């Protein structure tokens, strides 16, 4: 598919390359150059595709629940049966002899793949809930929290870094001490303490009302505790950008502080922010899983990948799929973001030192 346009930024740059060969010389923006480097990194692109596929599959959870599994995420099916290859199978075994074989009670049925007509593809849990449905809905929650907290965290970190870096002086002092303080806190401990405290009665202060069990609680807790991890390096970058001539020129032309911050400084840190954003989603999905595992994140009966593992841990001997499958989902998602984030960093700035510490 050839396009006439050579000036637009299009994904199909073959035409543009051809134009380049014929001696048309154009200015290329750093973003375009970065895209060219990224385009050659097939591994990074493949993992980006994997992430997109995971997001799309999770987003289709309601469709899957209604039309394939015929069961909602929190719908228990204790004492019910389903048909597998023409035979009736107990969803959660009641114990006793089934077809002449002794079965202990309370053991949920294992992964059926497609033998049960789309039901119980990944088996059931101890309440007879469909694990595959819960996995997809849990994915929605984990991704919402991961992406949401990454957005909030990055937004605040950028704003604070801009203020601290641009104004310097006491503003910088206050913001830096704020970073220091959160930094000195044991991150996981702080998140657990906040998460537990908030999950009991919700949060009802300063006109903000968060119900108990709201997804906003883990989202905000995670974004809050990770602000300095993004804010500190960005502040450093802005401090050095602040001394550059183009800022001086903008100020001399009468640009207001807001204008300097948002039209001069922000574009220059955009590439770091983008990389941080990608890597911090990965980090936040792991943090959410850890919090939920300890009971300080997503609250029952809402599923998330972390709570699914926590639910499955006591039954790992009798029903190992309960803990193993959500873990694989986490690893694939986080891995795809890490690999893509890595490729993105190499593409945007091959020598950048942007890094997320776990």
């Amino acid at each position, binding site marked *: 598919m050839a396009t006439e346009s050579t000036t637009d930024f299009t994904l199909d740059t073959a035409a543009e390359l051809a134009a380049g060969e014929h001696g048309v010389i154009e200015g290329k923006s750093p973003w375009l150059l970065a895209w060219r480097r990224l385009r050659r990194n097939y591994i990074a692109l493949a993992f980006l595709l994997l992430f997109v596929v995971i997001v799309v599959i999770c987003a289709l959870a309601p469709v899957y629940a209604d039309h394939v599994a015929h069961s909602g995420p929190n719908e228990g099916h204790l004492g019910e049966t389903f048909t597998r290859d023409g035979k009736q199978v107990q969803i959660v075994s009641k114990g006793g002899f089934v077809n002449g074989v002794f079965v202990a009670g309370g053991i949920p049925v294992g992964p059926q793949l497609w033998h049960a007509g789309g039901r119980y593809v990944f088996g059931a849990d101890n309440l007879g809930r469909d694990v595959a449905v819960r996995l997809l809905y849990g994915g929605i929650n984990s991704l919402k929290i991961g992406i949401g907290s990454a957005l909030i965290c990055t937004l605040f970190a950028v704003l604070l870094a801009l203020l601290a870096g641009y104004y310097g002086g006491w503003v910088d002092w206050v913001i830096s001490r704020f970073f220091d303080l959160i930094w000195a806190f044991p991150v996981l*401990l702080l998140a657990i303490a906040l998460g537990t405290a908030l999950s009991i009665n919700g949060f009802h202060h300063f006109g903000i009302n968060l119900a108990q069990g709201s997804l906003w609680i883990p989202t905000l807790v995670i974004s809050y505790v990770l602000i300095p991890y993004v804010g500190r390096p960005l502040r450093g970058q802005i401090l050095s950008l602040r001394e550059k001539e183009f800022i001086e020129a903008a100020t001399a032309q009468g640009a207001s502080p807001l204008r300097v911050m948002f039209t001069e400084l922000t574009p220059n840190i955009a590439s770091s922010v983008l990389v941080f954003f990608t890597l911090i989603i990965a980090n936040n999905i792991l943090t959410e899983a850890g919090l939920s595992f*300890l009971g300080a994140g997503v609250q029952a009966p809402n599923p998330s990948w972390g709570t699914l593992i926590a639910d499955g841990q006591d039954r790992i001997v009798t029903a190992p799929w309960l803990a193993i499958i959500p873990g694989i989902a986490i690893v694939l998602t986080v891995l795809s973001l890490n690999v893509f984030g890595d490729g993105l960093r190499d593409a945007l700035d091959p020598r950048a030192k942007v890094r997320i510490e776990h």
Partner: protein
Amino acid sequence: MIAFLARRLIGAVLVLIAVSFITYLIFVQIPGGDPAQRIAGRTATDANIADIRAKLHLNDPFYVQYWGMMQSLFNGSLKSYASQLDVVNEIKKGIPATLSLCIGAGIIWLGFGILVGIISAVTAGRMSDRLITVFALIGISMPVFWLGLIARYLFAQGHPFQFLPDGEYVPLTSNPWQWFVHLLMPWWVLAVLFIGFYGRVLRSNILDTINEDYVRTAKAKGLPANRVLVKHVLRNSLIPIVTLFGLDFAAVVGGSAILTETVFNLHGVGQYAAESTQNLDLPPIMGVTIYATFFIVFFSVVVDFLYAWLDPRIRPT
């Protein structure tokens, strides 16, 4: 240097005070119920609750309560609301398990992280480098508690092996061999994440350093490649690793090992913290947070000095 030391120490003390105060505020401002009510139990009368409130000074203004709590934390008389056990004592009981876990894991992740970093840097671009990169990325993408569960399932619960004990901690003093065997899985599980991370950091550090002029000079002098690598390249590339290790080690001792301790039921400080948080038991949370912050702040001061000692370029003047 003395001024630098003094400034850092004063800063550290201020951070400790601020952190303890914030922890206190989190639990006073966002209460999940009245502690007096929880201690009194379900059948308590209003008089009982009022009595407990008075005994615990819960009617005082919050800064008086805070001060009282800090005093009792430092003279060791702070008691848990839930179990009435001594907080300082409980933390002390957990320290051997936590330190055993963290020191062992630290040795593994530092050693293997450096090894992995050197191998992948020396063979950069080749198959071994790519494989290591893949494994490192998988390592940092795994939730540590999930890895712990899987390790227990595979090696301790008979699917397919059962040659390692399934969790719990055995004190070093009571049986060194059992101590070692019980910690083998937790050590590796905790270390895996860091091995991948350190390997990647060191790899990029080495690749940066290897292009420096002084390395070219050393090669031009005719020094053997191994000597250049160890004496010239590694010496510089390892400096950031030292910093990283100090901070990570402190973070792990100060609470990041919570998940590993919980999965393997090691009864360390982290698990104590996790259990207290689930009960919203304020005094132990205060105690553990102060303990954890102390480690983090103390190690960051140590790291600053180590850094200044290793790298004369950033020595404070």
